[in-house]
């Protein structure tokens, strides 16, 4: 979809270059970041990213209707597994394929020049883009979560406590998607979209093997190998922290401490990813 620079560029008031950390400037910087985020969200909606919800609804509807016969009374568990897994999978695809294009599209369309000619920092631009995609994913996840809850109520023909109990798991799925978005954005600052998508997907896969990396780091005979595995374990995102779909299907919710720790880990890891992306992006020459 071709866009004019004004479509992709946030509608910014003419601003003077940043004069330092005065409160006015900080407020202005936050507003600008949110404007970029809002635009990234609008762009995702315009690109029909949320159309995946239609597919999701069809999947759940078909599941709710047909699983009763196929699963011998296990439809509640299966609808949760199916719904939350689809939520994660669709979310990961959106995070990867939209995430890797966030920066690349702006460069390709040359709208980036119009944006950066305004008093907007490159890091601020990345943060805005990141928040915009996170907002898209949040809307996606909330609608999908509501869909799963409704499907459970439909299957039970009445209220089902699992319709509420699955929400902590949904929250953790969203945290995982936030990390994947950050990883995609980081790769997209220095690599082509195809390679970025591939690398992000690898990180998603390896992130779910983190328990094995830890085991390898303690069982390997070679010291060097142990160190490498330990470094990988700590450096790569530990995505098993967010894998609670299976317990959620049995009505087991993660405890509050696990959720708080997962949230803190998400924030810290995302800060690292965004700072890394900002560092690389600030050194790129667009001339």
């Amino acid at each position, binding site marked *: 979809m071709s866009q004019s620079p004004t479509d992709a560029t946030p509608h910014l008031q003419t601003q003077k270059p940043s004069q330092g950390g005065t409160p006015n400037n900080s407020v202005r910087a936050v507003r600008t970041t949110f404007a970029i985020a809002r635009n990234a969200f609008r762009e995702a909606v315009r690109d029909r990213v949320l159309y995946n919800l239609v597919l999701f609804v069809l999947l759940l509807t078909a599941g709710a209707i047909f699983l009763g016969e196929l699963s011998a009374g296990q439809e509640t568990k299966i609808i949760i597994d199916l719904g939350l897994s689809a939520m994660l999978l669709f979310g990961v695809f959106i995070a990867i394929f939209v995430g890797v294009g966030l920066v690349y599209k702006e460069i390709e369309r040359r709208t980036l020049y119009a944006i950066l000619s305004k008093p907007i920092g490159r890091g601020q631009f990345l943060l805005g883009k990141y928040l915009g995609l996170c907002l898209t994913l949040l809307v996606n996840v909330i609608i999908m979560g509501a869909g799963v809850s409704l499907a459970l109520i439909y299957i039970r023909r009445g209220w089902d406590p699992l319709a509420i109990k699955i929400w902590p798991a949904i929250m953790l799925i969203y945290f995982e998607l936030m990390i994947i978005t950050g990883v995609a954005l980081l790769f997209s600052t220095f690599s082509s979209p195809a390679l970025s998508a591939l690398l992000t997907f690898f990180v998603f896969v390896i992130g779910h093997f983190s328990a094995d990396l830890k085991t390898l780091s303690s069982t390997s005979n070679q010291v060097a190998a142990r160190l490498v595995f330990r470094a990988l374990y700590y450096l790569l995102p530990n*995505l098993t922290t967010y894998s609670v779909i299976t317990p959620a299907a049995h009505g*087991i919710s993660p405890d509050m401490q696990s959720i708080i720790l997962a949230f803190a880990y998400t924030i810290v890891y995302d800060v690292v990813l965004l700072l890394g992306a900002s560092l690389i992006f600030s050194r790129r020459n667009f001339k």
Partner: protein
Amino acid sequence: MKKSLLLVMTIMISLFVSVALVRMIDAHRANAPAPFADESLYVNAATARHMALAFNGLAADWYWMRSLQYVGGKIVTFEDTHTEGFGLSELDLHVLPSLLRLSTALDPQFIAPYEYGAMLLPEVSPDEATALLNSGVVANPNTWRLYHLLGYVYWQRHHYEMASEIYAKGGSLPGAPPWMAAMAARMKGEGGSRDAAGEMYRHLYDASNDPAVKDMVDKQLMRLKSLDQRDEIRNALNSYKATNGRCVSSWREVANELRAARLILDSKTGAPLDPSETPYELIKNGCDVGLDVNTKVPFK
């Protein structure tokens, strides 16, 4: 317009040809010596768990549904080629243990495959049944239902001492029903009796939420009831033979005795009805009783 019509026609013809090809492929596959469904699984439980990433629950559901389809497919195939009833050992369910093991390895808290395994595997592969249920108990040490199922598997294998131990362990868990402890004592004292079997199946029926398992247990309860009924009928037939020096030529000759034994008789033939309300058959020239081929009562 003409071009569009041509395109639509081509699409329709192509679709028709593709449907015909699919039917040909299906026919070819049906004639193949080893259907795909019977091939051993090449993914072991540990590998599957790794490959599933965050989707292990969904993968467990997939293997669970596949095991149901596998057994269902075998039953349909058997019924298509045989007229008599079947025992599980005749179905050749050799892939079932792997399917259930995969499902439970991917989601160790998924109780339905353990339950299904406890019902089917003792006849297919007793060792696999014990191993599956033992792994379930290890993964869910506080779930009394799994102890009940493991006790049932040991009971099926006539290991009454082990069954008693397992029931005793399960009965001591918080939330376990009082009859678990009673079953422990019963297994020790009269594990092989028909009464113990009846009680076992009644508890299995009550504890299960799975309609397929309930159906299987219901059939076993019918079988036990039918065994009792056949004992009563044999008594009547034997006493007739002792009095008259010959076996009966029709059910009407022992109608009074059968009524006295509280059996329901068919209004037309006077034959006693089995628990599925199918008339019993006179066999061995009227000297013995047998199940009708159309009965829903399992033969074994």
